[in-house]
Protein backbone atom coordinates (compact mmCIF):
# COMPACT_ATOMS: atom_id res chain seq x y z
CA UNK A 1 0.00 0.00 0.00
CA UNK A 2 1.21 3.45 -0.90
CA UNK A 3 1.60 5.45 2.25
CA UNK A 4 1.84 9.21 2.47
CA UNK A 5 4.23 10.85 4.81
CA UNK A 6 3.10 13.72 6.96
CA UNK A 7 5.12 15.31 9.70
CA UNK A 8 3.54 15.73 13.13
CA UNK A 9 3.46 19.46 12.48
CA UNK A 10 1.51 18.96 9.26
CA UNK A 11 -0.95 16.58 10.90
CA UNK A 12 -1.29 18.95 13.84
CA UNK A 13 -2.11 21.82 11.51
CA UNK A 14 -4.81 19.75 9.84
CA UNK A 15 -6.27 18.91 13.26
CA UNK A 16 -6.35 22.61 14.16
CA UNK A 17 -8.12 23.39 10.87
CA UNK A 18 -10.62 20.62 11.52
CA UNK A 19 -11.36 21.76 15.06
CA UNK A 20 -11.87 25.38 13.99
CA UNK A 21 -14.30 24.44 11.22
CA UNK A 22 -16.09 22.16 13.70
CA UNK A 23 -16.38 25.01 16.19
CA UNK A 24 -17.93 27.21 13.54
CA UNK A 25 -20.48 24.56 12.54
CA UNK A 26 -21.35 23.75 16.14
CA UNK A 27 -22.02 27.36 17.05
CA UNK A 28 -24.00 28.02 13.86
CA UNK A 29 -26.23 25.13 14.89
CA UNK A 30 -26.53 26.01 18.56
CA UNK A 31 -27.16 29.69 17.87
CA UNK A 32 -30.13 28.76 15.66
CA UNK A 33 -31.34 26.28 18.25
CA UNK A 34 -31.29 28.96 20.95
CA UNK A 35 -33.01 31.60 18.84
CA UNK A 36 -36.76 31.29 19.30
CA UNK A 37 -38.66 31.24 16.01
CA UNK A 38 -35.48 30.86 13.99
CA UNK A 39 -36.27 29.80 10.46
CA UNK A 40 -34.33 29.44 7.23
CA UNK A 41 -37.28 31.02 5.41
CA UNK A 42 -35.71 34.46 5.11
CA UNK A 43 -32.50 33.05 3.70
CA UNK A 44 -34.34 30.75 1.31
CA UNK A 45 -36.61 33.52 0.06
CA UNK A 46 -33.50 35.45 -0.99
CA UNK A 47 -32.50 32.62 -3.28
CA UNK A 48 -31.42 33.51 -6.78
CA UNK A 49 -30.03 31.51 -9.66
CA UNK A 50 -30.76 28.11 -11.11
CA UNK A 51 -32.21 26.53 -7.98
CA UNK A 52 -34.20 29.51 -6.72
CA UNK A 53 -37.51 27.81 -7.56
CA UNK A 54 -36.74 24.86 -5.32
CA UNK A 55 -35.60 27.00 -2.41
CA UNK A 56 -38.59 29.32 -2.70
CA UNK A 57 -40.86 26.27 -2.70
CA UNK A 58 -39.23 25.04 0.52
CA UNK A 59 -39.71 28.45 2.14
CA UNK A 60 -43.34 28.56 1.05
CA UNK A 61 -44.27 25.05 2.17
CA UNK A 62 -44.56 25.07 5.97
CA UNK A 63 -44.28 21.26 6.39
CA UNK A 64 -41.15 20.99 4.29
CA UNK A 65 -39.71 24.14 5.82
CA UNK A 66 -39.93 22.84 9.36
CA UNK A 67 -38.20 19.59 8.35
CA UNK A 68 -35.47 21.56 6.60
CA UNK A 69 -35.05 23.80 9.64
CA UNK A 70 -34.68 20.82 11.98
CA UNK A 71 -32.29 18.98 9.67
CA UNK A 72 -30.20 22.09 9.24
CA UNK A 73 -29.89 22.83 12.97
CA UNK A 74 -29.10 19.27 14.06
CA UNK A 75 -26.97 18.64 10.98
CA UNK A 76 -24.81 21.63 11.86
CA UNK A 77 -24.50 20.49 15.47
CA UNK A 78 -23.66 16.88 14.55
CA UNK A 79 -21.10 17.90 11.95
CA UNK A 80 -19.57 20.37 14.41
CA UNK A 81 -19.21 17.73 17.12
CA UNK A 82 -17.83 15.22 14.62
CA UNK A 83 -15.16 17.60 13.42
CA UNK A 84 -14.13 18.84 16.86
CA UNK A 85 -13.92 15.38 18.40
CA UNK A 86 -12.63 13.68 15.26
CA UNK A 87 -15.35 11.09 15.34
CA UNK A 88 -16.66 9.81 11.99
CA UNK A 89 -14.50 12.59 10.65
CA UNK A 90 -14.78 11.65 7.00
CA UNK A 91 -18.59 11.39 7.12
CA UNK A 92 -18.84 14.66 9.01
CA UNK A 93 -16.63 16.54 6.60
CA UNK A 94 -18.43 15.19 3.52
CA UNK A 95 -21.78 16.10 5.08
CA UNK A 96 -20.42 19.55 5.89
CA UNK A 97 -19.37 20.04 2.29
CA UNK A 98 -22.85 19.03 1.16
CA UNK A 99 -24.51 21.51 3.52
CA UNK A 100 -22.27 24.38 2.45
CA UNK A 101 -22.86 23.48 -1.19
CA UNK A 102 -26.60 23.86 -0.56
CA UNK A 103 -26.07 27.27 1.05
CA UNK A 104 -23.97 28.30 -1.90
CA UNK A 105 -26.46 27.03 -4.47
CA UNK A 106 -29.20 28.89 -2.65
CA UNK A 107 -27.37 32.19 -3.05
CA UNK A 108 -24.62 31.64 -5.60
CA UNK A 109 -22.30 34.57 -6.07
CA UNK A 110 -23.02 35.06 -9.71
CA UNK A 111 -21.66 38.18 -11.33
CA UNK A 112 -24.24 40.92 -11.15
CA UNK A 113 -26.48 39.35 -8.47
CA UNK A 114 -27.23 41.53 -5.50
CA UNK A 115 -28.91 40.52 -2.31
CA UNK A 116 -30.69 42.43 0.35
CA UNK A 117 -28.94 40.32 3.00
CA UNK A 118 -25.96 42.49 3.82
CA UNK A 119 -22.60 40.85 3.38
CA UNK A 120 -19.35 41.94 4.92
CA UNK A 121 -16.38 41.93 2.60
CA UNK A 122 -16.19 41.83 -1.15
CA UNK A 123 -16.59 38.66 -3.14
CA UNK A 124 -16.35 37.72 -6.78
CA UNK A 125 -17.83 34.23 -7.24
CA UNK A 126 -15.64 32.85 -4.44
CA UNK A 127 -16.89 33.55 -0.93
CA UNK A 128 -15.98 32.22 2.50
CA UNK A 129 -18.50 29.41 2.11
CA UNK A 130 -16.57 28.06 -0.83
CA UNK A 131 -13.29 28.41 1.03
CA UNK A 132 -14.70 26.51 4.01
CA UNK A 133 -15.97 23.83 1.66
CA UNK A 134 -12.52 23.45 0.13
CA UNK A 135 -11.00 23.25 3.60
CA UNK A 136 -13.44 20.45 4.43
CA UNK A 137 -12.29 18.67 1.30
CA UNK A 138 -8.76 18.76 2.67
CA UNK A 139 -10.05 17.32 5.95
CA UNK A 140 -11.90 14.60 4.05
CA UNK A 141 -8.92 13.39 2.06
CA UNK A 142 -6.42 13.53 4.90
CA UNK A 143 -8.73 12.02 7.51
CA UNK A 144 -7.08 13.67 10.47
CA UNK A 145 -9.49 11.98 12.89
CA UNK A 146 -7.27 8.95 12.71
CA UNK A 147 -4.32 11.06 13.85
CA UNK A 148 -5.88 12.98 16.74
CA UNK A 149 -9.51 12.19 17.30
CA UNK A 150 -11.84 9.55 18.59
CA UNK A 151 -11.64 7.84 15.19
CA UNK A 152 -8.17 6.75 16.22
CA UNK A 153 -9.54 4.82 19.19
CA UNK A 154 -12.45 3.43 17.20
CA UNK A 155 -10.16 2.33 14.45
CA UNK A 156 -7.73 0.69 16.84
CA UNK A 157 -10.62 -1.10 18.57
CA UNK A 158 -11.95 -2.45 15.30
CA UNK A 159 -8.52 -3.56 14.21
CA UNK A 160 -7.63 -5.27 17.47
CA UNK A 161 -10.94 -7.09 17.51
CA UNK A 162 -10.58 -8.14 13.91
CA UNK A 163 -7.06 -9.41 14.47
CA UNK A 164 -8.08 -11.31 17.60
CA UNK A 165 -10.55 -13.26 15.51
CA UNK A 166 -8.33 -13.65 12.49
CA UNK A 167 -6.06 -16.61 11.88
CA UNK A 168 -2.40 -15.84 12.57
CA UNK A 169 -1.49 -16.45 8.93
CA UNK A 170 -3.63 -13.50 7.83
CA UNK A 171 -0.99 -10.95 8.46
CA UNK A 172 0.09 -10.18 4.97
CA UNK A 173 -0.95 -6.54 4.47
Amino acid at each position, binding site marked *: *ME*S*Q*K*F*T*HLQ*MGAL*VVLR*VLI*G*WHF*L*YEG*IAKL*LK*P*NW*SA*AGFLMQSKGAFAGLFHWI*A*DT*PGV*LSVVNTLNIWGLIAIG*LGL*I*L*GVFTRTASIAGMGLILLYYLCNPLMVGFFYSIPMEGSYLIVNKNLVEMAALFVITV*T*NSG*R*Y*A*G*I*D*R*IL*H*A*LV*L*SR*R*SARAVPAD*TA*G
Partner: protein
Amino acid sequence: MSDEHTHTDEPSDAPRGKPITRRDFLQGLATVPVLGLFGYALYKQIGYEQAQQSAGMTAETKEAAGNEVNVALLGVGAQGKVLLDAMLKIPGLRFRAVCDIWTEYHQMWAVNLLSRYNFEVNGYEDYREMLAKEQDLDAVVIATPDFWHARHAVDCLEAGLNVYCEKEMSNTLESARSMVNAARRTGKLLQIGHQRRSHPRYLHSYHNLLQEADILGRIVTANAQWNRSVQPDNSWPERYTMPADRLRDYGFDSMHQFRNWRWYRGLGGGPIVDLGSHQIDIFNWFLEAQPTAVTASGGTYYYPRETHEWYDTVMAIYEYETARGRAQAYYQTQTTNGSQGYFENFMGVHGTLLISESEAGYKGSLFREATAPPWDEWVRRGYVSPPKVNLPQEEARAVLDVRESVSPDEHQIPIEFLEPYHKPHLENFFNTIRGTTQLNCPAEIGYETAVAVLKVNEAIEAGRRLTFTPSEFAV
Protein backbone atom coordinates in the same frame (compact mmCIF):
# COMPACT_ATOMS: atom_id res chain seq x y z
CA MET B 1 12.96 8.46 16.37
CA SER B 2 11.90 9.90 13.10
CA ASP B 3 10.31 13.30 12.88
CA GLU B 4 7.87 11.92 10.37
CA HIS B 5 4.53 10.40 11.12
CA THR B 6 3.56 7.69 8.70
CA HIS B 7 -0.04 8.38 7.95
CA THR B 8 -1.79 5.47 6.38
CA ASP B 9 -5.32 4.24 6.70
CA GLU B 10 -4.52 2.92 10.12
CA PRO B 11 -2.86 4.50 13.12
CA SER B 12 0.85 3.83 13.03
CA ASP B 13 0.98 3.21 16.73
CA ALA B 14 -1.70 0.56 16.62
CA PRO B 15 -0.54 -1.93 14.07
CA ARG B 16 -2.68 -4.92 13.45
CA GLY B 17 -2.89 -7.39 16.25
CA LYS B 18 -1.55 -5.01 18.84
CA PRO B 19 -3.78 -3.80 21.65
CA ILE B 20 -4.72 -0.15 21.88
CA THR B 21 -1.90 1.83 23.37
CA ARG B 22 -2.00 4.61 25.89
CA ARG B 23 -0.84 6.90 23.14
CA ASP B 24 -3.87 6.00 21.01
CA PHE B 25 -6.10 7.06 23.88
CA LEU B 26 -4.32 10.29 24.60
CA GLN B 27 -4.13 11.31 20.98
CA GLY B 28 -7.66 10.06 20.32
CA LEU B 29 -9.08 12.28 23.05
CA ALA B 30 -6.73 15.19 22.35
CA THR B 31 -9.44 17.47 20.99
CA VAL B 32 -12.07 16.73 23.66
CA PRO B 33 -10.97 19.69 25.84
CA VAL B 34 -11.96 21.96 22.94
CA LEU B 35 -15.57 21.09 23.76
CA GLY B 36 -15.02 22.35 27.30
CA LEU B 37 -13.65 25.59 25.93
CA PHE B 38 -16.61 25.81 23.56
CA GLY B 39 -19.04 25.21 26.40
CA TYR B 40 -17.41 27.94 28.48
CA ALA B 41 -17.49 30.42 25.58
CA LEU B 42 -21.13 29.53 24.88
CA TYR B 43 -22.03 30.00 28.53
CA LYS B 44 -20.42 33.44 28.51
CA GLN B 45 -22.11 34.36 25.24
CA ILE B 46 -25.56 33.33 26.48
CA GLY B 47 -25.02 35.25 29.70
CA TYR B 48 -24.04 38.31 27.70
CA GLU B 49 -27.09 38.05 25.43
CA GLN B 50 -29.41 37.63 28.39
CA ALA B 51 -27.90 40.64 30.11
CA GLN B 52 -28.37 42.65 26.90
CA GLN B 53 -31.97 41.53 26.70
CA SER B 54 -32.88 42.20 30.29
CA ALA B 55 -31.25 45.62 30.12
CA GLY B 56 -33.99 46.57 27.68
CA MET B 57 -36.77 45.03 29.76
CA THR B 58 -38.23 46.11 33.02
CA ALA B 59 -39.15 43.60 35.71
CA GLU B 60 -42.76 43.95 34.67
CA THR B 61 -42.21 43.17 31.02
CA LYS B 62 -40.35 40.01 31.98
CA GLU B 63 -43.22 38.87 34.09
CA ALA B 64 -45.75 39.87 31.47
CA ALA B 65 -44.04 38.09 28.58
CA GLY B 66 -45.74 34.90 29.66
CA ASN B 67 -49.20 36.36 29.08
CA GLU B 68 -50.07 35.76 25.46
CA VAL B 69 -51.97 38.53 23.66
CA ASN B 70 -54.06 37.66 20.59
CA VAL B 71 -53.46 40.25 17.90
CA ALA B 72 -54.98 41.20 14.56
CA LEU B 73 -53.41 43.52 12.01
CA LEU B 74 -55.63 45.96 10.20
CA GLY B 75 -53.76 47.44 7.24
CA VAL B 76 -50.45 46.00 6.11
CA GLY B 77 -49.10 48.63 3.76
CA ALA B 78 -45.70 50.22 4.24
CA GLN B 79 -46.36 51.26 7.84
CA GLY B 80 -48.14 48.01 8.71
CA LYS B 81 -45.02 46.17 7.62
CA VAL B 82 -42.84 48.33 9.83
CA LEU B 83 -45.08 47.56 12.81
CA LEU B 84 -45.24 43.86 11.97
CA ASP B 85 -41.48 43.69 11.75
CA ALA B 86 -41.22 45.22 15.22
CA MET B 87 -43.95 43.00 16.68
CA LEU B 88 -42.26 39.84 15.47
CA LYS B 89 -39.48 40.74 17.90
CA ILE B 90 -41.84 41.05 20.86
CA PRO B 91 -42.40 37.88 22.88
CA GLY B 92 -45.88 36.83 24.00
CA LEU B 93 -47.90 37.82 20.94
CA ARG B 94 -50.13 35.46 18.98
CA PHE B 95 -51.16 36.74 15.56
CA ARG B 96 -54.64 35.57 14.61
CA ALA B 97 -55.83 37.64 11.68
CA VAL B 98 -54.76 40.07 8.99
CA CYS B 99 -57.11 42.47 7.27
CA ASP B 100 -56.21 44.39 4.13
CA ILE B 101 -58.35 45.28 1.15
CA TRP B 102 -55.46 44.57 -1.22
CA THR B 103 -56.05 40.86 -0.72
CA GLU B 104 -53.98 39.72 -3.69
CA TYR B 105 -50.83 41.51 -2.62
CA HIS B 106 -50.33 43.04 0.83
CA GLN B 107 -52.72 40.72 2.62
CA MET B 108 -51.21 37.63 1.02
CA TRP B 109 -47.72 38.84 1.85
CA ALA B 110 -48.58 39.28 5.54
CA VAL B 111 -50.41 35.96 5.83
CA ASN B 112 -47.48 34.15 4.21
CA LEU B 113 -44.96 35.88 6.40
CA LEU B 114 -46.82 35.08 9.59
CA SER B 115 -47.34 31.46 8.62
CA ARG B 116 -43.59 31.16 8.20
CA TYR B 117 -43.36 32.20 11.82
CA ASN B 118 -45.80 29.41 12.67
CA PHE B 119 -48.83 31.63 13.20
CA GLU B 120 -52.13 30.44 11.81
CA VAL B 121 -53.72 33.62 10.59
CA ASN B 122 -56.90 34.24 8.66
CA GLY B 123 -56.95 36.94 5.98
CA TYR B 124 -59.87 39.34 5.61
CA GLU B 125 -60.80 42.06 3.17
CA ASP B 126 -63.58 43.59 5.29
CA TYR B 127 -62.67 44.43 8.88
CA ARG B 128 -66.30 43.97 9.97
CA GLU B 129 -66.17 40.36 8.88
CA MET B 130 -62.96 39.96 10.86
CA LEU B 131 -64.54 41.43 13.98
CA ALA B 132 -67.55 39.13 13.58
CA LYS B 133 -65.56 35.95 13.04
CA GLU B 134 -62.48 36.37 15.20
CA GLN B 135 -63.80 35.93 18.70
CA ASP B 136 -60.52 35.44 20.55
CA LEU B 137 -58.84 38.74 19.78
CA ASP B 138 -57.43 40.93 22.55
CA ALA B 139 -55.94 43.69 20.45
CA VAL B 140 -55.85 45.13 16.97
CA VAL B 141 -53.05 47.16 15.43
CA ILE B 142 -54.36 49.67 12.90
CA ALA B 143 -52.17 51.01 10.11
CA THR B 144 -54.74 52.02 7.52
CA PRO B 145 -54.95 55.41 5.75
CA ASP B 146 -55.77 58.30 8.09
CA PHE B 147 -59.35 58.77 6.86
CA TRP B 148 -60.18 55.20 7.91
CA HIS B 149 -58.68 55.42 11.42
CA ALA B 150 -61.79 56.65 13.22
CA ARG B 151 -64.18 54.08 11.78
CA HIS B 152 -61.71 51.25 12.31
CA ALA B 153 -60.69 52.28 15.82
CA VAL B 154 -64.21 53.04 17.06
CA ASP B 155 -65.65 49.77 15.73
CA CYS B 156 -62.77 47.74 17.16
CA LEU B 157 -63.13 49.45 20.55
CA GLU B 158 -66.88 48.80 20.45
CA ALA B 159 -66.12 45.15 19.70
CA GLY B 160 -64.21 45.04 22.98
CA LEU B 161 -60.70 45.18 21.58
CA ASN B 162 -57.73 47.23 22.69
CA VAL B 163 -56.45 49.37 19.85
CA TYR B 164 -53.04 50.57 18.76
CA CYS B 165 -53.71 53.11 16.01
CA GLU B 166 -51.08 54.73 13.85
CA LYS B 167 -50.86 58.49 13.87
CA GLU B 168 -52.25 60.76 12.52
CA MET B 169 -55.13 59.89 14.78
CA SER B 170 -57.53 61.04 12.07
CA ASN B 171 -57.68 63.52 9.20
CA THR B 172 -60.47 65.50 10.90
CA LEU B 173 -60.75 66.61 14.51
CA GLU B 174 -64.37 65.58 14.65
CA SER B 175 -63.54 61.95 13.98
CA ALA B 176 -60.49 62.11 16.24
CA ARG B 177 -62.86 63.19 19.03
CA SER B 178 -65.10 60.22 18.30
CA MET B 179 -62.10 57.98 18.91
CA VAL B 180 -61.34 59.56 22.29
CA ASN B 181 -64.98 59.20 23.27
CA ALA B 182 -65.14 55.58 22.13
CA ALA B 183 -62.09 54.74 24.25
CA ARG B 184 -63.66 56.41 27.27
CA ARG B 185 -67.07 54.80 26.68
CA THR B 186 -65.74 51.27 26.24
CA GLY B 187 -62.96 51.48 28.83
CA LYS B 188 -60.63 49.85 26.31
CA LEU B 189 -57.12 51.04 25.54
CA LEU B 190 -56.38 53.33 22.62
CA GLN B 191 -52.71 54.01 22.03
CA ILE B 192 -51.75 56.42 19.25
CA GLY B 193 -48.56 55.64 17.33
CA HIS B 194 -46.36 58.58 18.29
CA GLN B 195 -43.62 56.06 18.98
CA ARG B 196 -41.00 58.53 20.21
CA ARG B 197 -43.04 58.72 23.42
CA SER B 198 -41.65 55.28 24.31
CA HIS B 199 -38.17 55.62 22.84
CA PRO B 200 -35.46 55.19 25.51
CA ARG B 201 -33.50 58.22 24.31
CA TYR B 202 -36.55 60.49 24.47
CA LEU B 203 -37.66 59.10 27.83
CA HIS B 204 -34.17 59.69 29.23
CA SER B 205 -34.10 63.20 27.79
CA TYR B 206 -37.48 64.12 29.19
CA HIS B 207 -37.36 62.54 32.63
CA ASN B 208 -33.67 62.76 33.48
CA LEU B 209 -32.25 65.64 31.50
CA LEU B 210 -35.16 68.09 31.35
CA GLN B 211 -37.24 67.28 34.43
CA GLU B 212 -34.65 66.14 36.96
CA ALA B 213 -31.46 67.90 35.86
CA ASP B 214 -33.13 70.87 34.17
CA ILE B 215 -30.00 70.75 32.10
CA LEU B 216 -31.14 73.24 29.45
CA GLY B 217 -32.61 75.80 31.82
CA ARG B 218 -35.56 77.66 30.39
CA ILE B 219 -36.22 76.70 26.78
CA VAL B 220 -37.06 79.74 24.73
CA THR B 221 -36.71 78.42 21.21
CA ALA B 222 -36.90 75.09 19.47
CA ASN B 223 -36.69 73.93 15.91
CA ALA B 224 -37.17 70.67 14.10
CA GLN B 225 -37.20 69.43 10.57
CA TRP B 226 -37.78 66.46 8.33
CA ASN B 227 -36.04 66.81 5.00
CA ARG B 228 -36.71 64.10 2.48
CA SER B 229 -35.32 63.55 -0.99
CA VAL B 230 -37.49 63.55 -4.07
CA GLN B 231 -39.41 60.30 -4.28
CA PRO B 232 -41.30 58.78 -7.19
CA ASP B 233 -44.97 57.99 -6.63
CA ASN B 234 -45.71 54.57 -5.15
CA SER B 235 -46.49 52.15 -7.92
CA TRP B 236 -47.84 48.61 -8.02
CA PRO B 237 -47.46 45.50 -10.16
CA GLU B 238 -49.99 45.89 -12.98
CA ARG B 239 -51.37 42.38 -12.60
CA TYR B 240 -52.29 43.09 -8.97
CA THR B 241 -54.45 46.09 -9.78
CA MET B 242 -57.60 46.02 -7.65
CA PRO B 243 -60.99 46.08 -9.37
CA ALA B 244 -62.47 49.59 -9.53
CA ASP B 245 -65.58 48.72 -7.54
CA ARG B 246 -63.56 47.43 -4.60
CA LEU B 247 -61.45 50.60 -4.62
CA ARG B 248 -64.61 52.69 -4.70
CA ASP B 249 -66.18 50.71 -1.85
CA TYR B 250 -63.22 51.63 0.32
CA GLY B 251 -63.08 55.29 -0.65
CA PHE B 252 -60.42 55.42 -3.38
CA ASP B 253 -60.87 56.82 -6.90
CA SER B 254 -58.01 54.86 -8.42
CA MET B 255 -55.20 52.47 -7.72
CA HIS B 256 -52.80 55.40 -7.88
CA GLN B 257 -54.77 57.16 -5.18
CA PHE B 258 -54.83 54.00 -3.06
CA ARG B 259 -51.05 53.69 -3.28
CA ASN B 260 -50.44 57.43 -2.71
CA TRP B 261 -53.29 58.38 -0.38
CA ARG B 262 -51.04 60.49 1.87
CA TRP B 263 -50.97 63.22 -0.79
CA TYR B 264 -54.73 63.44 -1.28
CA ARG B 265 -57.16 65.75 0.49
CA GLY B 266 -59.82 63.90 2.36
CA LEU B 267 -57.59 60.83 2.73
CA GLY B 268 -54.36 62.00 4.35
CA GLY B 269 -52.71 65.25 5.36
CA GLY B 270 -49.44 65.48 3.43
CA PRO B 271 -45.91 65.46 4.85
CA ILE B 272 -46.68 67.96 7.64
CA VAL B 273 -49.08 65.37 9.05
CA ASP B 274 -47.11 62.22 8.14
CA LEU B 275 -43.74 63.47 9.31
CA GLY B 276 -44.29 66.70 11.19
CA SER B 277 -46.81 65.19 13.52
CA HIS B 278 -44.12 63.04 15.20
CA GLN B 279 -41.90 65.98 15.92
CA ILE B 280 -44.49 68.62 16.75
CA ASP B 281 -45.67 66.08 19.33
CA ILE B 282 -42.19 66.32 20.87
CA PHE B 283 -42.42 70.14 21.00
CA ASN B 284 -45.59 69.80 23.09
CA TRP B 285 -44.15 67.06 25.27
CA PHE B 286 -40.79 68.66 26.05
CA LEU B 287 -42.17 72.21 26.41
CA GLU B 288 -44.98 70.79 28.59
CA ALA B 289 -47.50 73.02 26.88
CA GLN B 290 -49.87 73.27 23.95
CA PRO B 291 -49.25 75.99 21.37
CA THR B 292 -51.20 79.23 21.55
CA ALA B 293 -50.81 80.22 17.91
CA VAL B 294 -49.34 79.06 14.61
CA THR B 295 -48.13 80.86 11.51
CA ALA B 296 -47.42 78.75 8.46
CA SER B 297 -46.50 78.94 4.84
CA GLY B 298 -46.30 76.22 2.25
CA GLY B 299 -47.46 74.83 -1.03
CA THR B 300 -47.03 72.22 -3.71
CA TYR B 301 -43.97 73.68 -5.32
CA TYR B 302 -42.38 70.68 -6.97
CA TYR B 303 -44.70 67.74 -7.54
CA PRO B 304 -47.67 67.81 -9.93
CA ARG B 305 -50.69 69.20 -8.14
CA GLU B 306 -53.13 66.70 -9.64
CA THR B 307 -51.43 63.85 -7.78
CA HIS B 308 -50.08 65.88 -4.83
CA GLU B 309 -52.99 67.83 -3.45
CA TRP B 310 -51.26 68.41 -0.12
CA TYR B 311 -48.22 70.63 0.31
CA ASP B 312 -44.78 69.22 -0.50
CA THR B 313 -43.10 72.08 1.37
CA VAL B 314 -44.22 73.51 4.70
CA MET B 315 -42.66 75.91 7.20
CA ALA B 316 -44.48 76.68 10.41
CA ILE B 317 -43.87 78.69 13.57
CA TYR B 318 -45.64 77.78 16.79
CA GLU B 319 -45.98 80.10 19.76
CA TYR B 320 -46.11 78.65 23.26
CA GLU B 321 -46.98 79.99 26.68
CA THR B 322 -45.00 77.61 28.89
CA ALA B 323 -44.98 77.49 32.68
CA ARG B 324 -41.65 79.36 32.54
CA GLY B 325 -42.62 81.96 29.95
CA ARG B 326 -43.06 82.39 26.24
CA ALA B 327 -41.39 80.15 23.73
CA GLN B 328 -41.34 79.69 20.00
CA ALA B 329 -40.81 76.61 17.85
CA TYR B 330 -40.04 76.43 14.15
CA TYR B 331 -40.80 73.40 12.05
CA GLN B 332 -40.06 72.62 8.43
CA THR B 333 -40.73 69.66 6.24
CA GLN B 334 -39.67 69.59 2.64
CA THR B 335 -39.65 66.70 0.25
CA THR B 336 -37.25 67.83 -2.42
CA ASN B 337 -33.90 67.52 -0.66
CA GLY B 338 -32.96 65.02 2.04
CA SER B 339 -29.85 66.74 3.32
CA GLN B 340 -29.55 66.90 7.13
CA GLY B 341 -32.45 64.50 7.57
CA TYR B 342 -34.63 64.86 10.60
CA PHE B 343 -34.15 65.97 14.20
CA GLU B 344 -35.56 68.10 16.98
CA ASN B 345 -33.48 70.81 18.58
CA PHE B 346 -34.33 72.44 21.93
CA MET B 347 -32.44 75.59 22.88
CA GLY B 348 -32.44 76.56 26.53
CA VAL B 349 -30.53 79.34 28.21
CA HIS B 350 -28.06 76.78 29.63
CA GLY B 351 -27.71 74.46 26.69
CA THR B 352 -29.04 72.79 23.58
CA LEU B 353 -30.50 69.34 23.10
CA LEU B 354 -30.27 67.97 19.56
CA ILE B 355 -32.11 64.70 19.30
CA SER B 356 -33.65 62.36 16.77
CA GLU B 357 -35.11 58.91 16.59
CA SER B 358 -32.57 57.89 13.99
CA GLU B 359 -29.43 56.03 14.99
CA ALA B 360 -27.86 57.14 11.74
CA GLY B 361 -28.39 60.88 12.11
CA TYR B 362 -28.55 63.01 15.19
CA LYS B 363 -28.77 60.48 17.95
CA GLY B 364 -28.51 62.84 20.81
CA SER B 365 -26.08 65.69 21.44
CA LEU B 366 -26.04 68.31 24.15
CA PHE B 367 -24.19 71.59 23.90
CA ARG B 368 -23.46 73.43 27.13
CA GLU B 369 -23.51 77.20 27.00
CA ALA B 370 -20.27 78.69 28.30
CA THR B 371 -22.24 80.63 30.90
CA ALA B 372 -24.18 77.62 32.22
CA PRO B 373 -23.63 75.99 35.62
CA PRO B 374 -21.30 72.98 35.38
CA TRP B 375 -22.70 69.65 34.20
CA ASP B 376 -20.10 67.61 36.10
CA GLU B 377 -22.72 65.94 38.24
CA TRP B 378 -24.71 64.76 35.19
CA VAL B 379 -21.53 63.45 33.60
CA ARG B 380 -20.68 61.60 36.82
CA ARG B 381 -24.16 60.08 36.95
CA GLY B 382 -23.93 58.97 33.33
CA TYR B 383 -26.78 61.19 32.17
CA VAL B 384 -24.53 62.75 29.56
CA SER B 385 -21.13 61.73 28.21
CA PRO B 386 -17.97 63.65 29.14
CA PRO B 387 -17.58 66.68 26.90
CA LYS B 388 -15.76 66.74 23.64
CA VAL B 389 -14.37 70.23 23.90
CA ASN B 390 -15.10 72.17 20.74
CA LEU B 391 -12.18 74.45 20.52
CA PRO B 392 -11.15 73.91 16.94
CA GLN B 393 -7.84 75.30 15.87
CA GLU B 394 -9.59 77.76 13.62
CA GLU B 395 -11.33 79.29 16.56
CA ALA B 396 -8.19 79.33 18.67
CA ARG B 397 -6.31 81.01 15.87
CA ALA B 398 -8.99 83.37 14.80
CA VAL B 399 -9.72 86.58 16.61
CA LEU B 400 -13.29 86.22 17.78
CA ASP B 401 -15.58 89.00 16.89
CA VAL B 402 -17.11 90.54 19.98
CA ARG B 403 -20.55 89.60 18.72
CA GLU B 404 -19.73 85.87 18.60
CA SER B 405 -20.20 83.46 21.47
CA VAL B 406 -17.60 80.85 22.33
CA SER B 407 -18.50 77.41 20.91
CA PRO B 408 -20.18 75.33 23.59
CA ASP B 409 -18.81 71.98 24.78
CA GLU B 410 -20.45 69.03 23.11
CA HIS B 411 -21.78 66.08 25.14
CA GLN B 412 -23.61 63.00 23.95
CA ILE B 413 -26.69 61.26 25.30
CA PRO B 414 -25.25 57.86 26.17
CA ILE B 415 -28.24 55.92 24.86
CA GLU B 416 -28.00 53.80 21.79
CA PHE B 417 -31.08 52.02 20.54
CA LEU B 418 -30.53 49.38 17.92
CA GLU B 419 -33.94 47.74 17.81
CA PRO B 420 -36.87 48.66 15.55
CA TYR B 421 -37.96 52.20 16.46
CA HIS B 422 -41.59 51.17 17.01
CA LYS B 423 -40.87 48.22 19.26
CA PRO B 424 -40.90 49.99 22.68
CA HIS B 425 -44.14 51.82 21.91
CA LEU B 426 -45.84 48.58 20.88
CA GLU B 427 -44.43 46.85 23.97
CA ASN B 428 -45.83 49.65 26.10
CA PHE B 429 -49.26 48.99 24.53
CA PHE B 430 -49.15 45.22 25.03
CA ASN B 431 -47.84 45.53 28.57
CA THR B 432 -50.65 47.93 29.39
CA ILE B 433 -53.10 45.29 28.19
CA ARG B 434 -51.41 42.92 30.64
CA GLY B 435 -51.91 45.53 33.32
CA THR B 436 -48.27 46.09 34.16
CA THR B 437 -47.85 49.65 32.97
CA GLN B 438 -49.70 52.64 31.51
CA LEU B 439 -50.01 53.94 27.96
CA ASN B 440 -47.34 56.41 26.93
CA CYS B 441 -49.59 57.96 24.29
CA PRO B 442 -53.27 57.52 25.12
CA ALA B 443 -56.02 58.93 22.89
CA GLU B 444 -56.03 62.30 24.70
CA ILE B 445 -52.39 63.00 23.87
CA GLY B 446 -52.89 61.85 20.29
CA TYR B 447 -55.80 64.26 20.06
CA GLU B 448 -53.81 67.22 21.41
CA THR B 449 -51.13 66.60 18.81
CA ALA B 450 -53.72 66.27 16.04
CA VAL B 451 -55.17 69.65 17.03
CA ALA B 452 -51.74 71.30 16.85
CA VAL B 453 -50.72 69.64 13.57
CA LEU B 454 -53.92 69.87 11.51
CA LYS B 455 -54.03 73.62 12.21
CA VAL B 456 -50.90 74.08 10.07
CA ASN B 457 -52.75 73.12 6.87
CA GLU B 458 -55.55 75.44 7.96
CA ALA B 459 -53.13 78.31 8.53
CA ILE B 460 -51.56 77.88 5.09
CA GLU B 461 -54.99 77.90 3.54
CA ALA B 462 -56.02 80.97 5.54
CA GLY B 463 -52.76 82.76 4.83
CA ARG B 464 -52.59 84.23 8.33
CA ARG B 465 -51.65 83.52 11.93
CA LEU B 466 -54.21 81.31 13.67
CA THR B 467 -54.66 81.09 17.43
CA PHE B 468 -55.60 78.17 19.64
CA THR B 469 -57.83 78.36 22.67
CA PRO B 470 -56.94 76.03 25.55
CA SER B 471 -60.38 74.41 25.29
CA GLU B 472 -59.60 73.28 21.74
CA PHE B 473 -57.21 70.68 23.08
CA ALA B 474 -59.74 69.06 25.38
CA VAL B 475 -62.40 66.51 24.49
